[in-house]
């Protein structure tokens, strides 16, 4: 039993965090050069031939950085449906993909192709006003569908979202802790008040629990373990609610400034809500778990 990342995976995390700290909105070709688009794509198709655990590290770091490009759409959603030539173009940064889930397509306007139940479609249609403006949802126009060799992998997508949610929860926790150390009221930093500090302790505990579930789900996906569907549903349910609660508490701890448009917190909050909604809210995921346990 060994529940830790390898040194190489930890190094990937450090590199990703350092890069994203310098480049808040990397371009797609930068992601291709970094090799992030082809992490799990075989070397014959120009990828790194690694696995989902390395991708899980990147989903978490991109969630933490609130990255707004179609990385989740391409790598977290569409990848398992694609054939070799398409994978080669993804690894090279030449094609961006998304997928239609529950009638909605994330990042429709910024991808080239969309995976549907009936095959690949050109990314044409209407982008809808979306609460999380940085990851808008769209509806596909009718059009031709080209057959695809694979299909979507729901546990993999849910595990990716759980990892993003952990990154969000960790980042807003750190923002709130720094603010509580800094902000003075009644002559003392507000972090001395237990009404503040205990909220943040709760966020810490929930974030660690969410992290454990997300990494468990990621391992199950990487190893094609039979528990992957239930592990991913469990992780997505808990991590998305933990991320939303972390954002809510962070906003509360920040007081008025946390409620403003200029502060970054509302964008994390909206992303957390996006993650909770996509593929079914936590209650929907718990019904999947319940069916596994009770039926």
């Amino acid at each position: 039993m060994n529940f830790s990342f390898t040194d190489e995976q930890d190094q990937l995390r450090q590199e990703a965090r350092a890069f994203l700290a310098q480049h808040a909105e990397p371009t797609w070709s930068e992601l291709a050069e970094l090799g992030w688009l082809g992490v799990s794509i075989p070397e014959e198709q120009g990828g790194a031939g690694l696995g989902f655990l390395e991708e899980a590290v990147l989903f978490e770091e991109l969630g933490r950085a609130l990255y707004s490009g179609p990385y989740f759409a391409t790598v977290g959603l569409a990848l398992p449906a694609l054939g070799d030539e398409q994978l080669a173009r993804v690894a090279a940064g030449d094609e961006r993909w998304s997928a239609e889930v529950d009638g909605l397509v994330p990042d429709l306007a910024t991808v080239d192709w969309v995976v549907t139940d009936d095959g690949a479609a050109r990314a044409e249609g209407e982008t809808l006003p979306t609460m999380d403006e940085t990851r808008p949802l769209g509806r596909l126009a009718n059009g031709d569908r080209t057959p695809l060799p694979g299909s979507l992998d729901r546990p993999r997508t849910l595990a990716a979202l759980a990892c993003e949610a952990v990154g969000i929860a960790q980042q807003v926790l750190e923002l709130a802790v720094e603010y509580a150390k800094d902000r003075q009221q009644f002559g003392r930093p507000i972090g001395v008040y237990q009404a503040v500090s205990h909220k943040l302790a709760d966020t810490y505990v929930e974030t660690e629990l969410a992290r454990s579930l997300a990494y468990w789900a990621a391992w199950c996906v990487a190893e094609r373990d039979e528990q992957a569907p239930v592990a991913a549903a469990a992780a997505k349910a808990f991590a998305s609610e933990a991320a939303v609660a972390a954002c809510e508490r962070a906003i509360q701890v920040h007081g008025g400034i946390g409620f403003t448009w200029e502060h970054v917190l509302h964008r994390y909050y909206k992303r957390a809500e996006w993650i909770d909604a996509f593929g079914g809210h936590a209650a929907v995921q718990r019904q999947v778990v319940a069916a596994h346990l009770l039926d």
Partner: protein
Amino acid sequence: MDLRDTAEEAAFRAEVRSWIQENVPDELRGHRGGAARFEGEALRAWSRALSEAGYPGLTWPVEYGGRGAPYSFQAIFYEEMARAEAPPHVGVIGLGMAGPTIMAHGTEEQKSRYLAKILSAEEIWCQGFSEPNAGSDLAAVQTSIELAPDGTRFVVTGQKVWSSYAHIADFCILVGRGDPEAPRYQNLTYVIVDMHAPGVEVRPLRQITGEAEFNEIFFTDVDVPRENLLGEIGQGWQVAMTTLLHERATLGFALTTTLEVGVRKLLALARERGADDPLVRDRVAREWIELQALKYTNYRALTRLMQTGIPGPEGSGVKLHWSEQNQRLTKLALELHGPEAQLLDGETGGYWQFQQLRSRGNTIEAGSSEVLRNIIAERVLGLPRSR
């Protein structure tokens, strides 16, 4: 990352599983716990059987009679005990707290006198930390541990409370005030007290469940030989922190495995009574999900401990979350009984009613939830001290 057992772990798991299967007496299987678990010859016999098979002290160094096994073996042992619903060893205070503290701070004489008999279950230990006026604030203990003028012994006077196993214990790890003039955190002394010495009186403390699981201990001019000192006079706080560190290092797994038993029983109950109700399904799923969250958090903490030898921060929230989840789980189980939840002689024989009442203590004992949140806020998150 590999969540499967290694070959050695798998072999150990198989060995433990079949040993428990063959040895746990039927009348102890699925025992609901409570005060009765400390009494009766069956439990002592079971503990001695565990000791003879070499399961206590798995992670203790070989030189002290342990197996020197990795922490993962301890986790596997807990998991298999829970799977079989086998009751724990009666010597848990000695094994989990007194033993590791003696190994860390004890003299060679103390190590050879006490450790082997902790492992063999010949001697049972209890803990004398909390007092009526010193609960979360351990440094405020009032029990006096005064060095006699001749310097050969201490005289102990005071009252301790919430002491599990004191009524069957042979020894007590006791923290008291060694130097009333010294500043806070430098005024405590830590000694081993013979529970059969004159002046020691144990009274059962009847709790919310109606049972007497804990005790009060009264010490009246009890003579304690100087060789029973652990650490130095005035270093009691530092020694006590070692005890609590060990309590918390192994506690997560033990607690989570008891919750696993509860969740398994809850699932059986839900299948029997409410498996179609979407609200019940949602709540049952939540309990199962959060059990997995605790379990895998323990695995992360365990991996860190095995790789670095130092417990990481991952586990610091496990007890906090476990206690609150256990309270919620027992309430849910009772709700599934409907209005008959009040009946103690129903089909489950008062099991869930007992568990619900007992669970109220979970957020108080072994670090109250308020203290644990302070610890996380200050030591893990680095927020300013509230006191």
